[in-house]
């Protein structure tokens, strides 16, 4: 039964496909799944249960369905444009088209790609690369593995938002770091193998090719506007990917070189976000062992938690509200209950840089960091 939860992903993507098949204003069907999922995640109780998966292949099915579905989504979009069922000259249908494609290219595509990029076989990894093209970053696995998994919660990690950083700033800094770190890692790897960084084996060539292929395909099959829709959708999806990523490690601190522990990630244990995210929001154990299958990730209700990811996402659009009602209270709690003494010091330094209050003060008589 637990395996069936993950079929939410292909259902949601299929709704988007159906929207383009029907055409007209139904092109908004894909993006309409976002508020529905959000409301459900908010009203349903939290889900802290471990999964019981007697047959792994059933749970894995949704991972391998996503690529054909995304191809199907684009195919349905292009057919709807060519047939006239989707008039991109109409503002409503143009906007509905890129919103639907953009949303589905991020969710559930990114979480599925993330799971696949950590599998131990070339095939799922290749599928992950193709899926990642839809949100504009075919080589996401490189920076994700070489930088994020090694340096998370430190200043070296572009995927850890620093205290005081807004989601708007983070989308740009994370995007920059993802591409720059990936380029650097590939070049370094080749040089260590005794090869030139320009060697044909450099995966950057594949990345560029894939990024061109998608809009180029839309141009060839559709028209210029369809190609523009693809580009806008990819950019929007990238923004959404980093937008959701912002809440995974927001403001957390780790001393460089110290082991990753249970308190080094935020957990969002929503009834909807867990399956639609392929457990990516329940992921601290993933950092402790990246080969743990998504359904084997053990929820940690004792570990630092955030409210519904959808709520965080919505509130994050207004940074002062996000900081006041969620970020600061949760980080203050984290600093008091989870952070080690060294992490507390780094946390207060981060607060100072952010212009936030120093909610932990050093007790000079005993060396304890006490709370106000």
């Amino acid at each position, binding site marked *: 039964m637990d395996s069936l939860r993950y079929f939410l992903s292909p259902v949601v993507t299929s709704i988007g496909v159906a929207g383009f098949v029907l055409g007209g204003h139904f092109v908004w069907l894909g993006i309409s799944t976002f508020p529905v999922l959000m409301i459900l995640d908010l009203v349903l109780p939290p889900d802290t249960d471990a999964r019981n998966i007697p047959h792994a292949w059933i749970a894995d099915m949704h991972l391998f369905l996503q690529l054909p579905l995304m191809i199907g989504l684009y195919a349905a979009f292009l057919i709807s444009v060519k047939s006239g069922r989707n008039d991109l000259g109409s503002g409503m249908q143009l906007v509905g088209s890129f919103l639907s494609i953009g949303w589905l290219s991020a969710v559930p595509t990114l979480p599925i790609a993330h799971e696949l990029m950590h599998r131990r076989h070339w095939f799922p990894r290749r599928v992950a690369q193709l899926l990642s093209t839809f949100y504009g970053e075919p080589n996401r696995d490189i920076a994700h593995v*070489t930088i994020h998994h090694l340096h998370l919660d430190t200043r070296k990690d572009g995927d850890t938002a620093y205290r005081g950083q807004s989601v708007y700033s983070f989308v740009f800094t994370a995007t920059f770091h993802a591409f720059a770190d990936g380029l650097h890692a590939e070049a370094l*790897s080749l040089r260590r193998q005794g090869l030139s960084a320009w060697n044909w084996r450099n995966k950057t060539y594949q990345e560029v090719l894939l990024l061109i292929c998608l809009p180029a395909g839309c141009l060839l099959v559709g028209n210029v506007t369809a190609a523009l829709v693809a580009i806008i959708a990819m950019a929007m999806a990238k923004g959404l990917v980093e937008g959701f990523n912002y809440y995974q490690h927001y403001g957390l601190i780790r001393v460089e070189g110290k082991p990753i522990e249970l308190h080094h990630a935020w957990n969002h244990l929503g009834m909807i976000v867990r399956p639609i995210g392929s457990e990516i929001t329940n992921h601290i154990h993933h950092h402790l062992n990246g080969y743990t299958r998504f359904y084997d990730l*053990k929820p940690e209700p004792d570990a630092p938690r955030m409210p519904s990811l959808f709520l965080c996402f919505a509130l994050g659009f207004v940074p002062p509200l996000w900081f006041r009602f969620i970020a600061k209270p949760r980080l203050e709690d984290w600093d008091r209950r989870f952070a080690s003494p060294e992490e507390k010091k780094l946390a207060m330094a981060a607060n100072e840089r952010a212009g936030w209050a120093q909610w932990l003060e050093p007790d000079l008589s*005993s060396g304890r960091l006490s709370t106000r």
Partner: protein
Amino acid sequence: MLKKWFKKKDPFKVIVAPHDRQFAVTAGHTLLESALAAGLGFPHDCRVGTCGSCRYRLVEGKISELNSSAMGLSAEDFQNGYRLGCQTIVRSDLKVWLPELDENTVPLAVLNGEIRGASLLTENIIELCIVVDGPMNFVPGQYADLEVEAVLGSRSYSFAAPPLVGHEDSLCFHVRHVPGGKFSGWLFGGSRIGAKIKVSGPRGRFHMHGGDGPVVCIGGGTGLAPLKCILEAALKTRLKRPVSFLYGARTQSDLYCLQDIDTLSHQWPVPFTFIPVLSNEPLDSAWTGRRGFVSDYVEEVQDIKNSQAYLCGPPPMVDAAETLLRRYGMPADAIFADRFFDRSMSASQNQI
């Protein structure tokens, strides 16, 4: 020909030089994973191909890689034939050379068990004894997750006694009755002898590290369990390092395992000092020992700069002790801590 193609293949074998060890490779798993599953102490850390901890030199055999090992190795190491265990998929029988083995690596096991004993050590600490349906080896200092049907989710408890040779299926934990605690409430709520329990472990990295200098143990509450376990295991190896053991409790009635600690103290081959500190003992009681917080007495420890510290218990106690140890000159990498969180602290914090 069809038989040859579809015949189930024997697993590949890996010989690990110069340690004279070998293991079989699990299909679909990396070299590192297969080694760990076989109980081999293959050094590792990040497991994603970037830290270089799982480097080995390929002597014979064929492999493929998930990502190039060059990502996590120096150019020199890569050119000299080193590869990363976490990125290696084995394609034939192998011979590898591994610089050293990590003796503190034990594979995870999930075992079904039965509660055989639940004796009161104090009015709110139970010694829980479980027999499981297979051996569970662990490194003293580690913990296991315990789960019963009556309580949603598992709870983590440190092993309270070192593994007994020939009785590796007998496990022991100290469980404190946490106000509002679901698991501890269930355990204290009636006779649980014979109840079924699932044990998943061992987990964690808290353990005795090598060294020649003195050892400082600082514990509070059931933080005594892993420290006692570590020291009892160390005694068996005749460890010759002086020990200062500071233990914090609220009142005299909260002190426990004093006989076991006394035995340790008498059998320890070099000086062993036990200092209990009570924070809430009535002033007019007969107690003549230390009063206050256990961290207040860190300054009494001799030769802090050359010692290693093992801290275990409630986070505020551990934090305070760590801060003071650093202040008195103990290097950060000589301090090992295991902070005990309890779920009742977090329940109200996670409401929105």
